[in-house]
């Protein structure tokens, strides 16, 4: 392997493993050198996921890197520091912007300090929280962190660690907002943040100068909970991440586990899962479209979108018995076979939706006010999209070809023809259009599948307790909002040693500050609508 030789030439003591993906292990002080070599010379410009892990005797970070040309040709970097009292690693925010929030998450949940990180505040948890939840020796007793009924002030001190010329580490502090700045809280209770998301926005009249997202209002510690659950149990938690792509999230976890324990799923299951994923995607995009229109003041459009989404929800209800949190995929198949009416209803829905899409364009897309408010607003360039790890419709609107269904087809996606919707502009309008065009593309996929569902079992027989062989596994799927990944690190137990969900929402939130600066308050709301983040997906 050529890359391996190149790395060995530069760093002779790097360790190599041939797991699911090629894995390189390096000492912490060499990590930044290797990372910058991979990023700048080898074209690994997309940091798919950054996971902090407590290895027992050391604290480490696992980086999944990919090239933006092919987001799933991945390489895994690993590093660890044995100093658990004052763990310090080098930050990679200068190489990949998406590392910013991810490293803050690792700092908040594992206590790893990142040197040269500009803003070491704890993400999800407040500064007073005792202990680091994702560490194995964490004391979760309620006495340790009693429920506070006092309102706690936010920490506005940006702490950063850096080296002096003498080689000592010094700590610097900077205030987030100046005293004279007019800071408005948008959220956590606000109609347009689509959940309990909190932006602190510094305003100059109507213009936005700075946006600071404050996350964690519904952080439930799902990753920590998974560590004490068996694999079939934890499936239910995936539906509660991005509840608008419940099927797709669960599909990711199921197929990750299936790959790890080598369960073969029947072709029928692949088809059912693909169709459910696409229906889910349409439902989610419809809601995204509706909510965006409502954010921009067109309430009628919102009602239209919700009306048509209802038809999909009814199809789900027939088969899954539930409307929002479906609990449908299980390890080795799906929970129930398809409802007898399923095919009929889907076949009715496809032409209906195609017809109604024209109405959507009439009511909103061509409108002069809507056009003026969306075009050339909130521009995200392709380089920024890659660096910030923005995937899904928002990434594709900037020209970042990141559709997992195309690049590494899973389920039945390899057997069908469909286009990846790409646009170049990267503005709010492009994100809006990509979402609408993807609905049509999903309808094409459904049309190709609905008449050809093969016969076969809808569930493979599995053992009641599933043990995943020791190793690390990563599976990604294309959720409605972007690349959704599941990273499982197993020690051969019935529950995972560490499980990480790579959520598309976190990267979406990280670009709000970037693209809404110097736009107006109304544009921030429109940009938020076009990014279409879902808060439980961000907070996990």
């Amino acid at each position, binding site marked *: 392997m050529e890359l391996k030789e190149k790395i060995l030439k530069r760093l002779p003591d790097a360790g190599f493993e041939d797991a699911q993906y090629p894995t390189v292990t390096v000492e912490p002080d060499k990590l930044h050198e290797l990372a910058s070599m991979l990023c700048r010379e080898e074209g690994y410009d997309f940091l798919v996921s950054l996971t902090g892990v407590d290895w027992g005797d050391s604290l480490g970070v696992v980086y999944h890197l990919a090239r933006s040309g092919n987001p799933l040709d991945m390489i895994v970097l690993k590093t660890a520091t044995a100093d658990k009292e004052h763990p310090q690693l080098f930050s990679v925010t200068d190489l990949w912007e998406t590392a910013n929030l991810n490293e803050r998450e690792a700092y908040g949940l594992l206590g790893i300090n990142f040197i040269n990180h500009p803003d070491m505040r704890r993400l999800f948890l407040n500064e007073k929280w005792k202990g680091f939840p994702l560490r194995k020796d964490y004391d979760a007793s309620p006495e340790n962190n009693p429920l506070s009924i006092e309102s706690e002030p936010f920490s506005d001190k940006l702490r950063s660690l850096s080296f002096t010329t003498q080689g000592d580490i010094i700590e610097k502090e900077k205030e987030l907002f100046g005293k004279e700045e007019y800071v408005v809280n948008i959220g956590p209770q606000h109609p347009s943040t689509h959940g309990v998301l909190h932006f602190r926005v510094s305003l100059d009249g*109507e213009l936005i100068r700075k946006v600071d997202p404050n996350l964690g209002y519904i952080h439930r510690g799902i990753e920590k909970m998974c560590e004490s659950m068996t694999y079939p149990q934890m499936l239910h938690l995936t539906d509660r991440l991005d509840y608008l792509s419940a099927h797709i999230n669960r599909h990711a976890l199921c197929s990750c586990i299936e790959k790890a324990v080598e369960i073969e799923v029947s072709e029928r299951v692949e088809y059912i899962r693909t169709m459910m994923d696409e229906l889910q995607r349409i439902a989610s995009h419809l809601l995204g479209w509706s909510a965006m229109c409502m*954010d921009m003041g*067109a309430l009628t459009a919102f009602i*239209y979108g919700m009306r048509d989404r209802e038809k999909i929800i009814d199809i789900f209800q027939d088969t899954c018995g539930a409307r929002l949190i479906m609990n449908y995929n299980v390890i080795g198949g799906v929970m129930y076979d398809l409802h007898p009416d399923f095919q009929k209803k889907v076949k009715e829905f496809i032409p209906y939706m195609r017809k109604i899409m024209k109405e959507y364009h009439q009511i909103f897309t061509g409108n002069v*006010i809507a056009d003026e408010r969306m075009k050339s607003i909130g521009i995200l360039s392709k380089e920024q999209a890659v660096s910030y790890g923005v995937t899904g419709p928002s990434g594709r609107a900037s020209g970042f070809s990141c559709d997992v269904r195309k690049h590494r087809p899973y389920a039945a996606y390899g057997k069908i023809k469909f286009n990846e919707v790409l646009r170049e502009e990267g503005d709010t309008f492009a994100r809006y259009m990509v979402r609408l065009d993807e609905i049509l593309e999903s309808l094409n996929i459904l049309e190709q599948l609905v008449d050809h569902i093969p016969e076969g079992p809808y569930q493979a027989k599995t053992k009641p307790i599933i043990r995943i062989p020791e190793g690390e596994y990563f599976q990604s799927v294309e959720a409605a909002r972007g690349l959704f990944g599941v990273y499982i690190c197993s020690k051969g137990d019935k529950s995972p040693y560490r499980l990480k969900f790579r959520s598309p929402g976190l990267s979406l939130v990280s670009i709000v500050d970037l693209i809404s600066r110097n736009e107006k308050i109304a544009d921030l709301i429109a940009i938020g609508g076009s990014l279409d983040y879902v808060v439980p997906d961000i907070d996990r």
Partner: protein
Amino acid sequence: MFDFKVLTQWIDQSLRALNLPDFGVLVIELVLVGIALLAAYAILAIILIWFERKICAWFQCRLGPNRVGIFGLLQTFADTIKILLKELIPINNNDKILFYLAPFIVILSSMLSFGALPFGKGLQAIDFNIGIFYMMAVSSLGVLGVLLAGWSSNNKFSMIGAMRSGAQMVSYELSVGLSLLTMVIFAGSMQLSQIVNQQADLWFIFKGHVPALIAFLVYLIAGHAETSRGPFDLPEAESELTAGYHTEYSGIQFGFYYLAEYLNMFIIAAIATTVFLGGWQPLHIPGLDGFNHVMDYIPTPVWFLGKAFFCIFLSLWVRWTFPRLRIDQLLHLEWKYLLPLNLLNILFMALIVIFKWHF
């Protein structure tokens, strides 16, 4: 046509027959008129809210209120009772006096202009010789209440909403004023009763050629913006500023803003009716005497309300179709398009009046 003067003069004479002093008669009449107007104000607001809900539901493929009473007619009454029973939540750290004063200013300004409207033949409480001027003057007082509300709430969202409102009202007041002025040039009078009487044969919108039509359209847009509804609801901008200037208000204080908003919509429509659509005058087409005679049998208040509700329907149509403008678009629309158009239109109208090109 039934002249309501018959009724009002009968009341006046029967009061004088009681041998009351002149001053006493005046006081009693003022109280009676006041009660009648307040009742009309409240009832109109309730009807308007119901009307909007039904229309909006129709646009959105829904049913709208349909549980309380037939067609949900009693729904708004129930809601009114509910809002009256709601607690007024006191706010800490605000300017108490201004905070409580603001809703009254808003409702006062809409009440003042409501009182001067000609609802039917002989059905006008007070007929100023500067009627149009008076209307414009008192209806623009409302923005004071909005600004005070935003300032005194000590809330940043309210503040932004109030500032937007200030910019919006001051700008669109110009277009409203200028488009009405166009018609004043045409009518040659500011007195509402005279303006209405001049339209007995043909409404101004037909009489006044193209400039009247342009003025009507500009007035509808600017007037709609004045009411801060529909695509122009930036001061409230629910999805941006939660509720804008009235975020901190609760109970009937909020109810006052709500009421004033609906009544302002009615007042704008009523002025449009009076100035452009013939007020309470029935539809007359020169030459068709039989038709004109039949039209006279429809009572004048019905004509007035019918036309006003038609204008309100237009405004609802716009409101439930368009997305909200952004503040810069809003000001561009006024200062770059409506205002120049209006100024040219006035000139055009003046030429038409000078050379007598009108019908």
